[in-house]
């Protein structure tokens, strides 16, 4: 058992490769049962965007023992909740139940992961729901902008498509492909179980073994998309939408979570664009001092994972102020590269990151996410204790050096979504 103040957890590894992390948190009488399967949109073929996502959405639509209505009865009857989401590099199946319902939850989880039946009529229903949702997202300028930005950052890669897929990709999906995707990608060595709540870790580990120790998948295979490369020339994309505001996205390929500069860039994020309140430069200058925007930020570490995320600076503003807003973003980034950061900014970021770290362990779901990150990125059991030391060892000169080598204000992607404007197009 590892103990770091408020959160304790135990780790077990089944013979089939399944990793199980259990943490007892007795603050509320609930338990959060999570399976993270490394089968996200990264595993999709290029012409089948949305495959991982629709596979995940069908896990609770029928299994060997239960039909979809029964699954909903089991979860909802006692007031529980079930959410299943695909992400870029994994699919998360999360049950929130009363702690007393742990064993029922594990049985259901094993059924959904191991024996989904993928009924044809449920596949068609989900496909129609997804297609409609994709259409509705086209009304949202922020989503349109982020999607365009991703396509530019990850060209020729499944990482560049929306997790839900594209209209074309989802229309092309066949049920057989869903079954095959599940057959190849869902496997114990590819799955992390994280259970947090008012439960006994020892008893929980026994129950996990009961439901999962005989899980084998001889057909398991995992593909790795080509490693994305950072662009070498500028890219500009405009999308016209009849709206009052313009949304501006500026940036390029970011870093993966295991990058040696990760913590330095966390410091940089706090200083430049995603610190709390209006303490970091971009929100302070562009929002608080110039009144240009309600929403503006920049971030490079937030999207890092198994694959490089994106460095992105964002602002939305009234169409007439678009030049000023874009120049403002660029000016802040150039100022950072030209003049560096101050000692006071570095001290503030040290204090903030080390002082706020404990907020990551407040809720069952947050604790589960942190334990997953520790497992996935091999941060080691002493990571929470070491975090402060890692952050405090980062110096001003290191931040300046990393900023200059990792941020590029010449070869970046610029996406602009909003009303037409010929002058700006120049």
């Amino acid at each position, binding site marked *: 058992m590892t103990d770091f103040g408020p959160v304790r957890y135990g780790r077990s590894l089944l013979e089939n490769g399944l990793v199980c992390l259990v943490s007892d948190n007795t603050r509320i009488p*609930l338990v959060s049962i999570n399976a993270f399967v490394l089968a996200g949109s990264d595993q999709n073929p290029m012409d089948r965007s949305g495959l991982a996502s629709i596979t995940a959405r069908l896990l609770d639509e029928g299994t060997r023992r239960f039909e979809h209505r029964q699954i909903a009865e089991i979860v909802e009857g006692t007031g529980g909740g079930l959410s299943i989401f695909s992400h870029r590099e994994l699919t998360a199946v999360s049950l929130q139940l009363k702690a007393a319902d742990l064993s029922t939850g594990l049985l259901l989880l094993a059924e959904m992961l191991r024996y989904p039946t993928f009924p044809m009529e449920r596949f068609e229903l989900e496909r129609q729901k997804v297609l*409609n949702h994709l259409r509705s997202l086209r009304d949202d*300028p922020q989503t349109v902008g982020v999607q365009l930005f991703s396509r530019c950052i990850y060209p020729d890669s499944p990482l560049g498509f929306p997790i839900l897929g594209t209209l074309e990709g989802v229309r092309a999906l066949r049920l057989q492909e869903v079954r095959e995707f599940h057959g190849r990608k869902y496997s114990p060595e590819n799955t992390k179980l994280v259970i947090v709540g008012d439960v006994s870790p020892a008893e929980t580990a026994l129950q996990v073994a009961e439901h999962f120790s005989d899980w084998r998948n001889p057909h398991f295979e995992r593909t790795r998309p080509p490693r994305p490369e950072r662009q070498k020339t500028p890219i500009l994309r405009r999308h016209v939408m009849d709206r009052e505001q313009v949304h501006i996205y500026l940036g390029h390929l970011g870093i993966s979570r295991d990058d040696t500069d990760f913590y330095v860039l966390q410091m940089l994020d706090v200083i430049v664009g995603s610190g709390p309140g209006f303490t970091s430069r971009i929100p302070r200058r562009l929002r608080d001092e110039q009144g240009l925007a309600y929403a503006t930020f920049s971030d490079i570490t937030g999207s890092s994972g198994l694959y490089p995320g994106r460095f992105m600076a964002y602002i939305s503003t009234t169409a007439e102020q678009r030049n000023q807003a874009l120049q403002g973003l660029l000016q802040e980034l150039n100022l950072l590269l030209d003049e560096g950061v101050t000692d006071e900014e570095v001290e*503030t970021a040290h204090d903030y990151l080390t002082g706020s770290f404990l907020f990551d362990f407040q809720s069952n779901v947050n604790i589960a996410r942190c334990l997953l990150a520790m497992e996935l990125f091999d941060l080691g059991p002493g990571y929470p204790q070491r975090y402060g030391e890692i952050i405090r060892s980062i110096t001003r000169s290191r931040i300046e050096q990393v900023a200059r080598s990792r941020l590029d204000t010449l070869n970046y992607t610029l996406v602009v979504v909003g009303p037409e404007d010929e002058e700006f197009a120049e």
Partner: protein
Amino acid sequence: MFKGSGRYAKGEIDYITTRKGGHNNAFTSLDYTAYYFSFAADRWDPALEIEADRMSNASFDADEFELERKVILEELKMELDSPWGALRQAVETRFFQRHPYRFPVIGNRRDLSKISLDDMKKHYRRYYCPSNAVLVIVGAFPLEATLVRIEKQFGEIPPGEAAVVETASEPVTREARRLTLNRASEVSRVLIAFPAPSIRQTDHFAAHVLECVLAEGKLARLYRRLVEEEGVASLVSTEFGETFDPHLFEVRLELREGVDPEKAISLLFEELTSLAARPVSSAELERARNQCITQLFEDFETTLDQAVQLGLLEVLDRFEYWNEYVERVRSVSAEDLQRIAGTYWSPDLSLTGVLSA
């Protein structure tokens, strides 16, 4: 309120919070404004002094006022650029004819452009005072010593007067109302608002349970009927919250391609009418009660959650509401749900907003 007060220069509140590894923010609801801090328990000491100072000594610089006006106008534009934001604002402002709930919380463009620094100062002087405020502290802190500190920080501030809330009663029009938004849209969206009980009415508990029957999970009535069986909608969601006076229960539908909004609306009304006519099964009732209770636990998970929930209840009613919640929800009967459906969520009391594809 973040731009300077007697002891703190502009930006200093954020700076102090950040140096302590904390967070702060504020939000405004229909009935109250809340300011909050979250800190590790060993370093929350600046929070009381900051709140006491800005309750009585906010500076309100004229240039800062103009800058913030610009920021809020951007926030408003962002909301109105979003299809749901625009539809919601249209329906909510049209629903009420007399009650101040007819004004959006963020304000409307005309008023935001007209408000003067003086108007804001008057508002501040009238409402920001101890008699009109509730202070909530949750977490690991020494009680007695903290009470002494609170007295020291806030005890000298003139008490002021608690706000007298003028409750304008709404005329009841028994006729389903309708509005249409005209703008380009990829899918049709429908937002239907019904009157709903306030937190001070006992019906509030049963309304929560009925909301679960209608919209919580895949067994919920609206999901099953509109999404699964009839295939008219791809998304159903509802919203119902805690307000001082009766406000709204809202149902949002995103319609499948080619579906006539009239068909979806009439199916929704049919479901509500049938809930008023026939009692739900005991299993359905039990499920909805359980969902409400689990939701309560989740709403109280973090210390900030607890502080916000206790604060809003004390402002709107009394914080003991939460102590009684589980028992009151458990005692909700099938007949109570019929009454809510018939009395509040009746088609002829609704206002429907439609944004067609």
